[in-house]
């Protein structure tokens, strides 16, 4: 299962990168026409006398003048950068719709990037944590080091499950075979948690906390100890 998941994600990533590169037009060899350049420049400029409208979108007289100026400067052979500088020289940097990547305006560019990275890190953390919890065999050698609260929660769940099985068996809702199978399953899991708890307890030893394994020993009947012993011998 794991072996198949990785290539799928890799393939998805490769397709995404290829699509982005192809869509961005960086591979296109055809230079833009004067009209295409004019539209691109005008779309990146703010209409001087409007609120949040580009020169390309506005019909205000100032926008019309800027459009005529852009066309004239293109005809004179100026580069896009020179045309932008020409207008910034007159109207200031606010004529450009995209804020400059310097000074305080740099925050506008950096904050979304940092936010995105933080979100990715958080998402990765959640995936790794979930994978550690679900994919690791608790009875296998060197089981996961679970945090004490998680351990306690699982232990409580298993103890409750055992009590439910007892109640259902006594009520006659479970057959002998099913009851024994359920009990054996939970006992094995509980025993595995007991071993893991020893590992977790070692981590918090020095903090004055009681060993959590004591809980398991106290609530689990002798069968649990036998199961645990059998499991330990099996290792």
């Amino acid at each position: 299962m794991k072996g198949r998941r990785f290539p799928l994600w890799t393939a998805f990533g490769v397709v995404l990168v290829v699509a982005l590169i192809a869509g961005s037009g960086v591979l296109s060899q055809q230079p833009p026409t004067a009209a295409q350049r004019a539209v691109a420049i005008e779309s990146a400029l703010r209409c001087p006398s409007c609120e949040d409208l580009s020169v390309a979108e506005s019909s205000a007289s100032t926008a019309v003048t800027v459009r005529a100026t852009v066309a004239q400067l293109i005809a004179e052979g100026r580069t896009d950068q020179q045309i932008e500088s020409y207008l910034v020289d007159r109207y200031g940097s606010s004529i450009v719709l995209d804020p400059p990547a310097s000074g305080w305006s740099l925050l506008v560019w950096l904050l979304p990037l940092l936010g995105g990275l933080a979100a990715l890190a958080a998402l990765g953390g959640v995936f790794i944590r979930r994978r550690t919890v679900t994919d690791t065999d608790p009875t296998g050698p060197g089981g996961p080091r679970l945090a004490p609260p998680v351990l306690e929660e699982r232990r409580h769940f298993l103890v409750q499950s055992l009590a439910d099985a007892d109640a259902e068996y006594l009520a006659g809702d479970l057959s002998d075979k099913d009851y024994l199978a359920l009990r054996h399953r939970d006992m094995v899991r509980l025993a595995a948690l007991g071993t893991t708890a020893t590992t977790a307890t070692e981590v918090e030893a020095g903090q004055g906390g009681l060993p959590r394994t004591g809980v398991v020993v106290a609530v689990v009947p002798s069968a649990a100890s036998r199961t645990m012993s059998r499991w330990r011998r099996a290792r």
Partner: protein
Amino acid sequence: VTDAGVDLEPAPVRHSARWVAIGVLVIAAGLIAVLATRPPAAVDEVQNPVVGRMAPPISGETLAGSRYSLPRAPGRFVVVSFFASWCEQCQSEGPELVKFQFQHHRSDDATMLSVVFSDSAGDARASQQQLGVTWPTLTDSGGTIALDYGVRQLPSTFVIAPDGRVVASIVSPVTAAGLDQILAKATAEHA
């Protein structure tokens, strides 16, 4: 659940949510501090890029049909007013401009020049006649003078020093007294 009557210690509490909240609060406080200390968008005297530089050339046809060209070094202060007949604030500052021109007419240390901004010649002419304007008013039909001065809104006024540098840019209605202060300051700085 207890172990042989001994109470278990409470499970350790994770503080990640608290740290995230503190981080968000610090970022929000930083942004508020930055925004609160920035100068307001609409200040009377703005830092137009043209201020401090030599004045862009002004030449063209006047409403009277004659040609006008501002000398590179005019030899006296020139107050350039961009206006339109549809601009109410321009109409309200009009009498102040007339007053300023009248006060400096004899001393000849300053003069007025108007430029029509996004308006028809007929409407602009009627507006100027109503105010009793006697100084040249350029039509600027292509809007190139406004573009060279970075005019975004009306009323916009620029003060050009005798040596041809732009010493002030104002984007609100001006008064004769306010213009006199700008002239006095510019004179003192370059005395």
